[in-house]
């Protein structure tokens, strides 16, 4: 779509970037151990302060991870909502996250020596679940309510299998339980590098293809009329969305609702044109997850709760609101 970023959108992007800057500083400073702004500056200038080790080994990768995972989950939700033309689609609601999670649990508990397979198998688990949901609902035109019900049902089944595995292998649960609830606290520098190199180039590809996402929301007839290969783009974007969701789950467990909330706020702010919506979604996603993670660390400090729990508390009511709103309009 021949669109220019107008001044308001530029301004919004600047505001969101500044907000992200604030979020980063707060995220670096706050937690079970507080690090002052002055000390952060000292650490960045290379001084070995009291908390330098915590800062470099724990806090900093965690904040970077929060930015990336927030972006990946938000963009996955945005793409799924457009591809499925479903306002309440999200990797969690569709069961993609639980499929990826089950695959990850199988690797972690049953084949801990094959941890390299974690990401590819999480991707296959997510993709397999998405394919089941799509097949179950295809005949009814993939109506939003059918897709949600199918996603919830499949999630329940995967959850059951996962519970059996967790009980059967309860001696191997160290680290897994924390991961299961969705946390950014386990991220290492090595994870950050993998997260960046595996997904950042795909973000770039999605941004280049933003105009094609605009065509997808116009529907199959219009895409056909314009000579666009409909099936190819539907598959491509679905793969990309599942890929982002699976990568996120593989490293941080299931963190729900980021992909649901963020694109909605993005659409309210800049409309449906993905050339504007995608950059806004990326920045909003990073801000939301980073903010939620900081909240997770300070609510009952010095203890922390998993960020997945914070997102559930924020996202659950939002999901209900969307159900009521779209239900009233007869869009489900």
């Amino acid at each position, binding site marked *: 779509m*021949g669109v220019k970023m107008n001044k308001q959108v530029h301004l919004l992007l600047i505001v969101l970037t500044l907000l992200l800057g604030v979020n980063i500083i707060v995220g670096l400073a706050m937690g079970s151990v507080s690090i002052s702004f002055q000390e952060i500056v000292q650490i960045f200038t290379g001084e070995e302060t009291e908390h330098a080790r915590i800062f470099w080994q724990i806090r900093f990768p965690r904040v970077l991870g929060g930015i990336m995972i927030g972006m990946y989950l938000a963009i996955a939700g945005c793409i799924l909502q457009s591809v499925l033309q479903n306002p309440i689609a999200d990797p969690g609601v569709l069961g993609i996250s639980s499929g990826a999670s089950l695959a990850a649990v199988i690797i972690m508990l049953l084949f801990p020596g094959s941890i390299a397979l974690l990401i590819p198998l999480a991707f296959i688990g997510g993709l397999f679940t998405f394919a089941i949901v799509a097949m179950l609902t295809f005949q009814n035109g993939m109506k939003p309510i059918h897709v949600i019900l199918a996603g919830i049902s499949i999630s329940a089944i995967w959850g059951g299998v996962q519970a059996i595995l967790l009980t059967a292998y309860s001696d191997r649960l160290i680290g897994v339980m924390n991961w299961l609830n969705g946390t950014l606290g386990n991220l290492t520098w090595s994870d950050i590098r993998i997260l960046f190199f595996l997904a950042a180039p795909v973000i770039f590809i999605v941004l280049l293809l933003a105009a094609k996402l605009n065509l997808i929301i116009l529907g199959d007839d219009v895409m056909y009329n314009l*000579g666009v290969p409909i099936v190819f783009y539907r598959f491509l974007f679905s793969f990309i969305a599942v890929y982002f969701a699976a990568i996120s789950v593989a490293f941080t467990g299931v963190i729900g609702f980021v992909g649901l909330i963020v694109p909605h706020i993005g659409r309210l702010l800049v409309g449906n044109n993905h050339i504007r919506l995608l950059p806004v979604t990326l920045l909003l996603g990073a801000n939301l997850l980073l903010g939620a993670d900081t909240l997770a660390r300070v609510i009952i400090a010095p203890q922390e709760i998993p960020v997945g729990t914070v997102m559930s508390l924020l996202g659950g009511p939002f999901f209900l609101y969307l159900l009521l709103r779209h239900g009233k309009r007869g869009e489900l």
Partner: protein
Amino acid sequence: MMNIRHLTFAFRGQSQPVLHDITFDIPRGKITSIIGPNGSGKSTLFRCLTGQYKVQKGEILLDGKPLAKYKNRERARRLAMVYQQHPQISGITVRELVATGRTPYSNRRHDMAKNKQVIDAVLEQVDLKMLEHQYINQLSGGQKQRVWIAQALAQEPDLLLLDEPTVFLDIEYQLETLKLLKELNQEKGLTICLILHDLTQVMEISDQVIALKDGRLFTKGSPYEVLTRERIEELFHVKSEILSTANGHKLVHFLL
């Protein structure tokens, strides 16, 4: 322009064809209307003409070449469609939507100027220049219809196919849409083929009328040849009379 030869079409898994042995031409520079009662196969024929439904027997030729042999982009540069129902989209401006009509063309830097020029010209043509930055969901029904026609025109097609472009519109917007199509035909020489329900509108706008009944070609010819009292009764099972106005226009009056 387009030649339809012995077109027969059945939906997958059904032995009984929906369309049987239909043959007619859509002549270049003319307006062809397709009429028929509900269930006569008009919309199915429309989707065969667009190439979305693959015909089992017969062929559809676009400028002598089978439609099925056209590549997607090449077809989209020759043939543009306006569908009966439009997607409910919000947060996209008029200009942005019309610009999608340039999708079949290259989007490289040196083509951008040409694309912009076409979009500007089309927006002027359909009288939407003033509303180009307005969101589509803020427009009236008639304005929305013009946006979708503008998108099709931005494809610079030789043939424009429209499936009931006046349905769901108030009478004011129906006439506005038909007037626009007539202008496009007369001033730009655009070939148009459309499905219409209102027989007076068919009489007013068409050069040729194709009448379908039970999936077969019932009759074809000029509006005056096709829209006679006897044929209308046979086709729609209603009684009517054809009236002439003082300025020579004909209209179909139905008798209750």
